[in-house]
C-alpha cells in the first residue's frame, strides 16, 4: 500500500467522504500497520487544529455578511474574545444563548467559567427537551445569528440527529431537514412558513429562504413584504401574500398564489420576471414556466397545523394521565399531587397516592392557581414568602424518590426549599434548589456535629434557574446503597454517597417552603444547607410525587418523556 493511497483515504475520512469499500480498505490498513496508525494520528492532529481555529473564528463570516450587517452584532462576542486570549483552548461557545449569570466576567476562575459554560451548553443541548437540543446546529449551521423561531412542531421526524429542532427553539441560518410531520417557522421580520416533511429548507436570512426540496406555504404580513423564497427553478418575492411552493426531488417545481400577488423570476434570467396573482399557479422546469390550476388544498395551512398540533398534544396529555393513574396506584406512592380538579378558591389539594396515610389532603396556604404545563391543566404558583403547601405523611422509610415539575419564577437567585420537614428528628430531610442551580438533598443523622445534617448536591445547573421553563427535578435516596442521585429532565446528573444512621421520615412537612418552626431553630438547623435564609420556592409547581422506593433511571426517563408537553425529538431511522 502506497503512502499516497493511505493519505488519500485519510483525507477522505476527515472530509466524511469515504465510501463503504474505502472505509473497509482504510480499516484493514489501520489494523495491520502501525505506520498507518501513526500517520492517522499525525494527520488527525492537523485536522483537529484547523477545526479549533474554525471554531474560534466564528465572528469573521458574520462581519462579512451583507445580510447580517444591518443586524446588531451577536452579544458577548467581544467579551468572549478577550477571555479567549487568556484561555485559547477553551472552545468558543459564545454564540449560544447563555443566560446572564453564565456570561464571562461573572466568574472569577477561568476554569470554573469554562466548566460552567460547558455545563450550560450541555444543558441547553441535552436537557432541554425543551428548548434547544442542538444549538450548535453543527453541520449546516451557516451564520450563527438567530433569524427565526420554530413556533410549531407537529409529529416532526428529522432527517438526522444534527437536524433536530424543537418547538420554541431559535433558528440560525442553515438547513431545516424534515423527514415527516410539519413545522412552522416564524421569521424575525414577520413572514411565517409552514413546512411539510419531507422537506429540505435553508434559512438564508431573516426574510429569505431556499426550498431545496419539499413543500411550504408562506404567509407574509405587511412588515415582511419582500420575503424571498428561492428554489432551483424559480425565485419568488412576496408582494403581500399567501403562497405555496413545491419542489420535488426530480421534475417540475410549482408555485401557487392563494392571496395577493408575488413577483416571480427564473434564477438566472431577471428578464423573466413577472407578477403572479391570486388563484394563479405555475409549473416550472428547465427554465420554462407553464400556467396550471392553483390548488390551495394541497398545502397544509396554519389552522390545519394548529389543529394537528393540538390533537397530538391532547393525545400526549392522555398518555400522561394514564401514567399518573398508574403512579398514584403504585403501592410505594406516599404523595401524589397533580393540582388538577381544583377550584380557583380551593385551599386544599387531594393527595392521590395509594398509600395516603394521613387525612388525604394537602393544605394550600397563600399561593395562586395558574395554568399548568399542559393546555387546560392547573399548577400552583408560590410567589410570596408565606406561600406553602403542607402535608403529613407518617412512617419511617429506607428510601425515598422525590419528583416535581417546576418552573422557577424570575427574581433573586437565592436557595429555595422544595421540600422541608420540620420534626427536628434524625431522619428528617430537605430538598433544595440552590441559588447556583444545583440541587441538594439533605438528611439529618443522629450525629451531634453540624446539627447532624449531611447532604449531597448535584453540579450547578444554571438552566434550572431560567424563568419560564418547565423542568422535571427528581432526586432518589437509596437507603440500601446509601446514595443520592439527582436527575434533571430524566437525565442523571450526579450520584453521591450519603450514608444515614437513621431511617428517613417526613411527618409534617412543606412543599415549596422551609417549614414552620421557631426562627432560631430554622436558622440553626438549615444553616449548612441553605445560606442565606431559606426562602419559599418562588415559582410554579405542576406535579409532585414522593415514593418510598428508589425509582430507577429508566423509570425517571419515562416519567419525563411522558410528562413533558414537548415530545422528545424523533430522528429518521
Amino acid at each position, binding site marked *: 500500500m502506497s503512502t499516497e493511497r493511505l493519505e488519500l483515504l485519510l483525507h477522505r475520512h476527515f472530509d466524511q467522504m*469515504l465510501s*463503504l469499500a474505502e472505509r473497509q480498505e482504510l480499516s484493514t490498513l489501520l489494523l495491520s500497520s502501525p505506520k498507518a496508525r501513526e500517520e492517522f494520528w499525525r494527520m488527525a492532529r492537523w485536522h483537529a487544529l484547523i477545526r479549533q481555529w474554525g471554531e474560534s473564528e466564528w465572528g469573521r463570516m458574520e462581519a462579512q455578511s451583507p445580510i447580517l450587517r444591518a443586524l446588531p452584532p451577536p452579544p458577548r462576542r467581544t467579551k468572549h474574545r478577550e477571555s479567549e486570549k487568556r484561555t485559547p483552548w477553551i472552545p468558543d461557545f459564545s454564540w449560544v444563548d447563555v443566560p446572564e449569570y453564565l456570561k464571562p466576567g461573572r466568574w472569577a476562575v477561568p476554569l470554573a467559567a469554562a466548566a460552567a459554560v460547558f455545563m450550560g451548553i450541555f444543558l441547553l443541548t441535552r436537557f432541554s427537551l425543551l428548548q434547544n437540543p442542538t444549538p450548535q446546529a453543527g453541520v449546516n449551521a451557516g451564520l450563527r445569528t438567530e433569524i427565526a423561531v420554530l413556533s410549531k412542531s407537529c409529529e416532526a421526524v428529522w432527517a438526522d440527529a444534527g437536524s433536530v429542532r424543537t418547538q420554541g427553539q431559535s433558528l440560525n441560518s442553515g438547513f431545516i431537514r424534515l423527514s415527516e410531520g410539519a413545522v412552522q417557522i416564524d421569521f424575525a421580520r414577520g413572514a411565517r412558513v409552514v413546512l411539510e416533511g419531507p422537506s429540505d429548507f435553508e434559512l438564508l436570512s431573516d426574510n429569505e429562504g431556499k426550498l431545496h426540496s419539499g413543500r411550504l406555504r408562506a404567509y407574509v404580513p405587511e412588515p415582511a413584504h419582500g420575503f424571498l423564497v428561492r428554489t432551483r427553478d424559480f425565485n419568488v418575492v412576496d408582494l403581500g401574500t399567501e403562497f405555496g411552493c413545491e419542489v420535488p426531488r426530480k421534475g417540475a417545481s410549482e408555485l401557487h398564489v392563494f392571496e395577493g400577488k408575488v413577483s416571480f423570476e427564473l434564477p438566472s434570467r431577471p428578464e423573466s420576471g413577472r407578477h403572479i396573482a391570486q388563484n394563479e399557479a405555475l409549473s416550472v422546469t428547465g427554465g420554462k414556466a407553464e400556467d396550471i390550476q392553483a390548488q390551495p388544498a394541497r398545502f397544509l395551512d396554519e389552522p390545519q397545523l394548529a389543529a394537528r398540533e393540538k390533537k397530538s398534544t391532547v393525545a400526549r396529555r392522555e398518555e400522561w394521565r394514564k401514567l399518573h393513574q398508574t403512579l398514584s396506584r403504585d403501592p410505594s406512592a406516599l404523595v401524589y399531587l397533580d393540582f388538577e380538579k381544583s377550584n380557583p378558591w380551593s385551599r386544599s389539594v387531594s393527595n392521590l397516592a395509594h398509600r395516603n396515610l394521613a387525612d388525604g389532603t394537602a393544605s394550600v396556604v397563600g399561593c395562586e392557581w395558574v395554568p399548568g404545563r399542559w393546555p387546560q391543566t392547573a399548577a400552583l404558583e408560590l410567589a410570596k414568602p408565606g406561600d406553602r403547601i403542607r402535608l403529613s405523611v407518617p412512617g419511617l422509610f429506607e428510601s425515598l424518590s422525590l419528583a416535581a415539575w417546576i418552573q422557577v419564577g424570575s427574581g433573586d437567585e437565592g436557595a429555595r426549599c422544595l421540600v422541608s420537614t420540620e420534626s427536628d428528628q434524625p431522619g428528617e430531610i430537605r430538598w433544595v434548589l440552590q441559588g447556583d442551580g444545583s440541587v441538594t438533598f439533605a438528611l439529618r443523622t443522629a450525629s451531634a456535629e453540624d446539627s447532624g445534617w449531611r447532604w449531597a448536591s448535584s453540579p450547578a445547573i444554571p438552566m434550572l434557574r431560567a424563568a419560564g421553563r418547565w423542568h422535571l427535578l427528581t432526586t432518589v435516596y437509596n437507603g440500601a446503597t446509601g446514595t443520592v442521585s439527582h436527575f434533571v429532565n430524566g437525565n442523571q446528573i450526579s450520584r453521591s454517597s450519603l450514608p444515614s444512621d437513621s431511617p428517613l421520615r417526613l411527618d409534617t412537612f412543606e412543599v415549596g417552603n422551609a417549614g414552620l418552626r421557631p426562627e432560631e431553630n430554622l436558622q440553626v438547623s438549615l444553616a449548612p444547607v441553605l445560606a442565606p435564609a431559606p426562602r419559599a420556592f418562588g415559582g410554579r409547581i405542576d406535579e409532585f410525587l414522593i415514593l418510598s422506593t428508589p425509582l430507577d433511571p429508566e423509570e425517571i426517563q419515562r416519567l419525563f418523556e411522558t410528562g413533558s408537553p414537548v415530545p422528545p425529538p424523533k430522528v429518521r431511522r
Partner: protein
Amino acid sequence: MNPTPDPEQTSLVQGLFVQHLPALRGFLLSIVSDFTLVDDVVQETFLTVNAKAAQFEKGSNFRAWVYTIARFKALQALQKSSPPAERFSQDVLEALCAHESSEDWHSEAQMRHLFDCIQTLTPKAREVVELRYQQAHRPPEIARRVGWSVDSVHVALSRARNLLRDCVLQKMEAERA
C-alpha cells in the same frame, strides 16, 4: 465531618475535564468525522464523567480514565447515528486508541502560526476551508456553494491541510532557529 465527597471531588473532576477538553475534542474529531456528533459525544462524556466523579481517584491517570469513557461514548454515538461508511468498527477504534500518544495535541504557538498561515491560502481555498472548518459543511454542500465538483472540493481541502501543516511547521522551525 461531611461524609459526602461530592463538591470538592466534582469540582476537581470538572476542572480536570476542562483542562483535557482541547485534546479530548481533538481525539474525538479524529475518530468521529461529523463535527456535530463530536459535540454530542463530548457532552455525553461530560455527563458520564460528572456522574462518576466519585469513582475517580485523585492522583490517578485522569486522561486514561476520561478517554476510555469518551471512546465508549464515541462508539455508542457512531453506532446509533452514523451509516457504516462513516464509522470505524470497534476493533479499528481500539487499535487506533492504543496507538494514540499522550503528547499534547497542540501548542499555543501552533495555533498562532495557523492564524497567519490561513492568510496565505488563495481566496478560493480559504473559502473552502472556512466552509468546512468554520461552518462545518460537508464537501457536497461546499461544492454546491462554490460551484465546484465534490471531488474538487476534496482536493482543495486536502491540499489546504497539507499547505497549512507545512506552513506552521516552517514557522515553528524558524522560531526555534
